[in-house]
């Protein structure tokens, strides 16, 4: 395998081509070598299909990459021995019509048609209709067992997805989550790009992670083009990324408070989330940071007055959000609902490959800003925050720890922004290259991988939103819980539907 750094590119020919058995062994051995699967995907290679893998070593800050070429329309599944690839294998099967033989949970991911006509992993013909949500759901049988089906349209202002609970009274034996309703064909459209729409689609892959995905995409373009963002541009991206984290974590603390009927923090955080969004808008005009991150740096800059205003607002928001969060930890009725609810063990989190606050709440030291730093995070370090208990409390408390550190970071950055332009011209992608880019979005690791063809256009583009790893974590958190705790558990993960469905 070849060693790569985050946000780097190499000629495609330097990605080692392994025999399938060696490729499989490398993936299976990963968990034992402190490596986890950041991406596993297929792309056409002549008439055949190639599999690519990106393994992240969080201790040595190295990404390991390799590929193999598949013979025929099947391969032995790696999921039984390496569960964290379970959804990657299902995705490969659905997109390309190759079957991972022996996969224990072999179902569609997004209910999309194979990109290779005449090849379907479930043996369906090309004109057979594919209906979203129609699959063989896991069922528990028994006289007193009942099934609760929820969605795709939910009761709140929220994206669509389908949830099936197998229950005995209030007790949940199993939750199955079936998604795909949000599928917009984003990855497919990137092939042949970058197009003039690509950056706008990146900003809306998961609209609440505009900065995270746009930064990952720009890092890919900069690596492929052998260009670099300006230091000041890197600093603004970092500030925007932490403001995005602050807004969303604040919103999550408020929503968690709301779900246990603790209205003070719910009301305060509802307002404070907007205050953080409005700080991003002060910088670039958009509350979600649309238009801010562009290849070569940042499209907006700020002078002394604007920076002073940002700092003033940060100080005010810090005071109020600290008070709102402390109320949670100091209120026994809140803690009684947070603690011991929706627990995910460290072992489960590791074997499923969870990322972000959901992983750190189980004690896993995974944070791209610290373990695979790129851009400003190579220069300025943010301490990694973890909790041990893996329950709703841990996922809430990790968010708060991260918020404190994000506030310190933004304040420090605003005081020591590098001089110079915020943006420079980025050369076009080089032909025949392979680039990997990781960004620690507020939900966790955002991973983009791109391959360019001989024309310098994208021959393949893989997006792995943190939610892709983490939805199964939510399903595990619900085991042996009361179904009435689902909203609370769900909110403690707050995963993206469109980021998963692309």
């Amino acid at each position, binding site marked *: 395998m070849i060693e790569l750094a985050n946000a780097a590119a190499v000629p495609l020919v330097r990605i080692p081509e392994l025999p399938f058995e060696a490729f499989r062994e490398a993936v299976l051995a990963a968990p034992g070598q402190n490596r986890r699967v950041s991406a596993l995907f297929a792309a056409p290679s002549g008439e055949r299909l190639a599999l690519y893998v990106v393994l992240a070593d969080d201790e040595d800050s190295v990404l390991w990459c390799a590929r193999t070429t598949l013979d025929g329309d099947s391969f032995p599944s790696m999921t039984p021995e390496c569960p964290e690839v379970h959804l990657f294998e299902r995705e490969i099967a659905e997109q390309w019509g190759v079957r991972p033989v022996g996969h224990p949970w072999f179902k569609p991911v997004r209910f999309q048609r194979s990109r290779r006509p005449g090849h379907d992993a479930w043996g369906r013909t090309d004109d057979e209709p594919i209906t979203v949500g129609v699959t063989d759901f896991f069922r528990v049988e028994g006289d007193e067992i009942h099934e609760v089906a929820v969605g795709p349209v939910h009761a709140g202002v929220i994206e669509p997805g389908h949830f099936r609970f197998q229950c005995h009274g209030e007790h949940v034996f199993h939750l199955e989550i079936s998604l795909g309703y949000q599928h917009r064909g984003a990855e497919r459209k990137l092939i042949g790009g970058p197009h003039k*729409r690509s950056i706008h689609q990146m900003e809306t892959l998961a609209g609440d992670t505009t900065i995270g995905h746009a930064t990952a995409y720009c890092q890919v373009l900069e690596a492929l083009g052998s260009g670099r963002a300006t230091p000041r541009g890197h600093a603004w991206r970092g500030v925007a990324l932490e403001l995005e984290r602050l807004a969303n974590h604040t919103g999550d603390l408020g929503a968690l408070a709301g779900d246990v009927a603790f209205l*003070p923090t719910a009301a305060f955080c509802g307002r404070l989330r907007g205050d953080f969004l409005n700080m991003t808008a002060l910088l670039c005009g958009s*509350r979600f940071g649309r238009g801010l991150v562009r290849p070569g740096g940042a499209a907006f800059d700020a002078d002394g007055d604007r920076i002073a205003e940002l700092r003033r607002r940060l100080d005010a928001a810090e005071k109020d959000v600290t008070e709102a969060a402390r109320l949670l930890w100091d209120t026994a009725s809140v803690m009684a609902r947070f603690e011991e609810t929706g627990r995910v063990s460290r072992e489960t989190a590791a074997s499923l490959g969870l990322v972000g606050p959901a992983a750190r709440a189980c004690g896993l030291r995974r944070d791209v800003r610290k373990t695979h730093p790129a851009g400003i995070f190579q220069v300025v370090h943010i301490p990694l925050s973890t909790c041990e208990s893996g329950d709703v409390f841990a996922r809430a408390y990790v968010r708060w720890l991260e918020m404190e550190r994000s506030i310190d970071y933004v304040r420090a950055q605003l005081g020591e922004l590098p001089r110079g332009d915020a943006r420079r011209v980025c050369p076009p992608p080089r032909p025949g290259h392979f680039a990997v880019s990781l960004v620690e979005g507020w939900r966790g690791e955002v991973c983009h991988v791109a391959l360019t063809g001989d024309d310098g256009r994208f021959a393949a583009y893989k997006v792995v939103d943190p939610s892709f790893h983490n939805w199964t974590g939510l399903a595990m958190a619900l085991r042996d819980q009361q179904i009435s705790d689902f909203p609370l558990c769900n909110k403690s993960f707050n995963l993206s539907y469109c980021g998963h469905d692309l």
Partner: protein
Amino acid sequence: MLRALLARWNQGHRTAGYPGEPPSLPDRFRGRPVLDASRCPDGCRVCADACPTGAVKTDPLRLDLGSCLFCVECQEACPEGAIGFTSDHRLAERAREDLVTSGDGRKRMAALEARTLRLFRRSLKLRQVSAGGCNGCEADVNVLGTVVFDLARFGIQFVASPRHADGLLITGPVTAHMKAALAATWEAVPPPRIVIAVGACAISGGPYAGHEEVNDGVGSMLSVDLYVPGCPPHPYTILDGLLGLLDRL
């Protein structure tokens, strides 16, 4: 308990004075565009070529707010300064064709027809359906429920069931996978009922227009009563549209 009361005191009164007072918007906010076709050289179409969604048209110069992402690619491409964006947040319209502007300002938006207006003016319950939305529009719809906007003071609320609703507020380009669920939700709303399309995706497909996986917005499925442009629209743009529809401005 005392601590919660003290916090409540410290956090203060936060509900904005809108619509009595003008909204506070960032100076870099990109709202209603201004176009000056007199600056366009003959045959020039650099703005249209730069636009990612085909929202800008030339001969004569005009802009479809229903497709516009407010990304300023057109403004930056134009060497003549013929396109600019103001901080006017009022963008909503009742008719699809009224979203195409030649930059000559906006006429006052018409409210609902007299009969439905009488029914909904003081109490409008909406069911939200996200049909491929990126959680940008959803988030800025949700924020209307916070103490800052306090949507309920206008009698507008989001309800959990379409059976309890007077209409749908739809976001997203309407993915192929959400068409059936959207149609079923619409069927479940008792008439008279209204449809509100929020965001470029719901109006035109937005950045995903033309993808075979999406339906390019809700317009081909349902008759839309209110279009709210933006990517995503600012909460004040949505609120302005809702209040205009109910003749409450």
